[in-house]
């Protein structure tokens, strides 16, 4: 470990280390940041959800966007896997279907950064099989 | 000087900053009772752990009661020493202390002299509302000191004396809470510890937890036994303190009354240890001069300084603390033992009494003398040179017990031949006295000139460590003096480190010397008493016709008739001794 010789050294070091625990800090106050849930059930994983998720995490981190990417169970849109739910603070959550790595990039650039909705939204009146069962 | 103004019991008080409430109250005539607190002014010794809580007083604005002994006066303080709250608290605390104290005052050695008993009386305690477990420890009976620590009230005075003043460090508080008590390591008997029997713990104990081994019954038994001839020797310090036990002012010299009382008690002969003190000077002085002359002649093997060896507490101290320096102290026995050795040979012959039928009793200001008289090297075929040693206090008790009105006694003289002494023998009782006595003789022997002034004022005083240079007609003799073993340790460590410049050092274990011995009447913390005793000793010296040991005619006769010359062959056999390494060692096994 290199010694910190000045307060600036410490600040630099902190900046470098910050990302190590932003995940934990963000999970404590998710309402204040972008939350993305990736459907990671068998169907999702089979359709490449894992790659999508990895891409999202890395890309958001590269762009220094405060976001929490979590996995979730099957959302019930098996026809449109991989599906992700994007929840911007203060807005209603939006679900996109068929999100491959390319689509994910667009979501970040246009929806999360730009604030505009993209094609491929699965309408909210669309109920999931689980919810159907409950009815 | 910073001044603080306050009110105690509505009386305005002005004191120096740093004064305790206890002293401030005393200055306006308010005596706050204390139990653990003890201040020995002239010795710079103070014990105030603030533990007994008997001295609590109410200070306006404070949440709790404050211990007067540990609370400094501050500007504008308003203090009440006897509010209801204080009275109730003080009495409750005393009741608590008494609830853990054996109620055996009738047979207690301290009955009538016990601070705790006095306090209970003063507070008017008639019953104790608490019942419950009482502390129970094993009694420890060493050759000189009895520890009956069920009676310990944890005032910690003994611990302070043993550690801070004497640096013997044999006592410490042990355990904790209700189980806590002051004891030697592993609660071992004192006999197995590094205790020197200096008795300073006994001298300050407010209760009967620490006391001397009482030999008065054995003395009575000897006196009653018609087959025995019982003689007594009395140490110089006894005559200036014994009177206190009979209500006399401290500093009264009662030599004549004492001799009278001893005869009335039935002793066959009443002698004086001072005689043996003169003898000690002859031997020790000769040894000093001998070593000095060899040293001056360039003999590298000779060890200087020479250390006095009259004090048995001191001897015990260096045997367990400085075993590497056993060859430095004088080999001369103490006066008590010289007396015994001469009594059981020369005197017994003269009196025509067999050794085993002669009982030598000593009256000493000292507890270590009890141990010393029992040392194996001071016995011949198991028969000790000194059979029984009692303290000033025990003698007083015997006189009272015999219904002798001490104050009304006429003065009587000691018997001869071992009752004649010089002023030099008398001053053995004071710190600096032994070395002054030695100087008087050594000067004249060495210079072959007569001293113009026998008082060596430079050697006197009360400071713990003193030094002076005495001019032996052009030869400067450097002398060191220490009283109290803590001070002795400092001088000894210098010697050990080769830093000491002294030719001779006098050491006495007890603060003030023998006048402050552990067997003297209790001073109850008033060191003014010690000073008065010391002054009386010098008065007694001044009143003596002969003031130099070598001029004592009976000493001269003793050498002529019996011993030959000082440090001669017979002297060596009878009047000199050797020392032992008493440091404890742990055994270790090989793996």
């Amino acid at each position, binding site marked *: 470990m290199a010694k910190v010789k000045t307060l600036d050294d410490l600040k630099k070091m902190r900046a470098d280390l910050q990302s190590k625990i932003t995940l934990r800090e963000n999970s404590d106050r998710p309402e204040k940041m972008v939350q993305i849930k990736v459907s990671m059930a068998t169907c999702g994983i089979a359709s490449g959800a894992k790659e999508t998720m990895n891409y999202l995490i890395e890309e958001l981190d590269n762009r220094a966007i405060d976001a929490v990417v979590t996995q979730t169970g099957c959302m019930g849109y098996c026809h449109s896997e991989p599906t992700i739910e994007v929840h911007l603070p203060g807005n209603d959550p939006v679900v996109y279907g068929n999100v491959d790595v390319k689509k994910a990039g667009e979501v970040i650039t246009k929806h999360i950064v730009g604030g505009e909705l993209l094609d491929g939204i699965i309408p909210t009146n669309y109920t999931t099989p689980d919810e159907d069962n409950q009815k | 000087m910073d001044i603080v103004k306050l009110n105690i019991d509505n009386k305005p008080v002005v004191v120096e900053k740093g004064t305790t409430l206890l002293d401030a109250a005393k200055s306006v005539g308010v005596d706050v009772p204390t139990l653990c607190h003890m201040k020995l002014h002239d010795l710079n010794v103070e014990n105030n752990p603030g533990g007994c809580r008997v001295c609590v007083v109410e200070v306006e604005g404070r949440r709790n009661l404050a211990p007067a002994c540990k609370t400094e006066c501050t500007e504008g303080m308003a203090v009440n020493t006897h509010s209801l709250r204080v009275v109730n608290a003080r009495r409750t605390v005393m009741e608590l202390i008494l609830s853990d104290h054996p109620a055996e005052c009738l047979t207690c050695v301290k009955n009538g002299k016990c601070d705790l008993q006095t306090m209970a009386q003063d507070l008017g305690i008639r019953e104790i509302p608490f019942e419950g477990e009482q502390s129970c420890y094993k009694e420890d009976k060493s050759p000189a000191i009895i520890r009956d620590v069920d009676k310990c009230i944890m005032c910690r005075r003994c611990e302070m004396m043993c550690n801070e003043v004497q640096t013997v460090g044999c006592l410490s508080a*042990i*355990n904790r809470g209700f189980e806590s008590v002051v004891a030697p*390591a592993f609660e071992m008997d004192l006999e197995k510890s*590094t205790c020197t029997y200096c008795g300073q713990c006994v001298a300050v104990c407010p209760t009967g937890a620490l006391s001397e081994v009482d030999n008065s019954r054995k003395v009575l038994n000897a006196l009653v036994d018609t087959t025995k001839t019982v003689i007594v020797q009395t140490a110089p310090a006894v005559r200036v303190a014994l009177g206190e036990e009979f209500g006399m002012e401290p500093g009264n010299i009662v030599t004549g009354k004492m001799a009278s009382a001893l005869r009335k008690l039935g002793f066959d002969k009443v002698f004086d240890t001072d005689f043996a003190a003169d003898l000690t000077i002859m031997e020790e002085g000769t040894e000093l001069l001998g070593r000095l002359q060899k040293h001056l002649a360039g003999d590298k093997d000779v060890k200087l300084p020479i250390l006095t060896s009259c004090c048995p507490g001191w001897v015990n101290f260096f045997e367990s603390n400085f075993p590497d320096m056993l060859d430095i102290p004088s080999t001369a026995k103490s006066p008590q033992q010289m007396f015994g050795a001469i009594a059981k040979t020369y005197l017994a012959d003269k009196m025509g009494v067999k050794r085993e039928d002669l009982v030598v009793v000593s009256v000493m200001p000292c507890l270590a003398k009890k141990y010393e008289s029992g040392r194996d090297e001071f016995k011949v075929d198991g028969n000790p040179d000194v059979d029984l040693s009692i303290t000033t206090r025990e003698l007083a008790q015997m006189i009272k017990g015999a219904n002798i009105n001490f104050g009304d006694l006429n003065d009587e003289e000691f018997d001869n031949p071992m009752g004649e002494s010089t002023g030099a023998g008398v001053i053995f009782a004071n710190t600096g006295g032994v070395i002054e006595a030695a100087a008087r003789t050594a000067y004249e022997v060495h210079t072959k000139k007569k001293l113009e002034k026998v008082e060596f004022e430079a050697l006197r005083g009360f400071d713990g460590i003193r030094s002076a240079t005495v001019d032996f007609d052009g030869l400067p003799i450097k002398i060191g003096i220490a009283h109290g073993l803590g001070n002795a340790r400092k001088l000894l460590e210098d010697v050990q480190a080769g830093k000491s410049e002294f030719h001779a050092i006098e050491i006495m274990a007890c603060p003030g010397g023998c006048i402050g011995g552990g067997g003297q009447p209790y001073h109850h913390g008033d060191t003014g008493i010690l000073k008065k005793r010391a002054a009386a000793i010098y008065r007694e010296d001044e009143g003596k016709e002969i003031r130099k040991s070598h001029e004592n005619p009976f000493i001269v006769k003793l050498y002529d008739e019996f011993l030959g010359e000082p440090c001669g062959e017979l002297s060596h056999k009878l009047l000199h001794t050797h020392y032992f390494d008493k440091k404890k060692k742990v055994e270790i096994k090989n793996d």
Partner: protein
Amino acid sequence: MAEIKLADSKVQELKDVCKKFEYDKGELINVLHAAQVIFGYLPAEVQEIVADELKVNIAHVYGVVTFYSFFTMTPKGEHPVSVCMGTACYVRGAEKVLDEFKRLLDVKVGETTPDGKFSVSSLRCVGACGLAPVVTVGEKVYGRVAPEDVKDILSEYN
């Protein structure tokens, strides 16, 4: 007190500890901690060595050893049983558990069974208050112990 002979190598280890602490009297408690690790307990002989090395009086060392409950002058049993008597454990019945250990082993608190197998002590709060009452046997922790469990716990070590 039975006198014992200490092993040479352990004594040397202890002396090294004293040296490491530069024979500082103020480090007495740290030295005693180390000594207790080396010997398992603090018999008189060990205290004598510590006193000698640090140049403090043996009475003082003993005074310190007997003041602190962590120091012990008796060797612990092969399986030292400690019952937590923190308040949380107490109100959840630790005293009954302790009584049961004492009864079954026929020893008092702080004692070791004659065969040297178990010693029983109480301690103040292990900090596992969620598991109260808590018992430790050596390193092992038992939580939510009831008096009737005591027999089973002991049988694990028989």
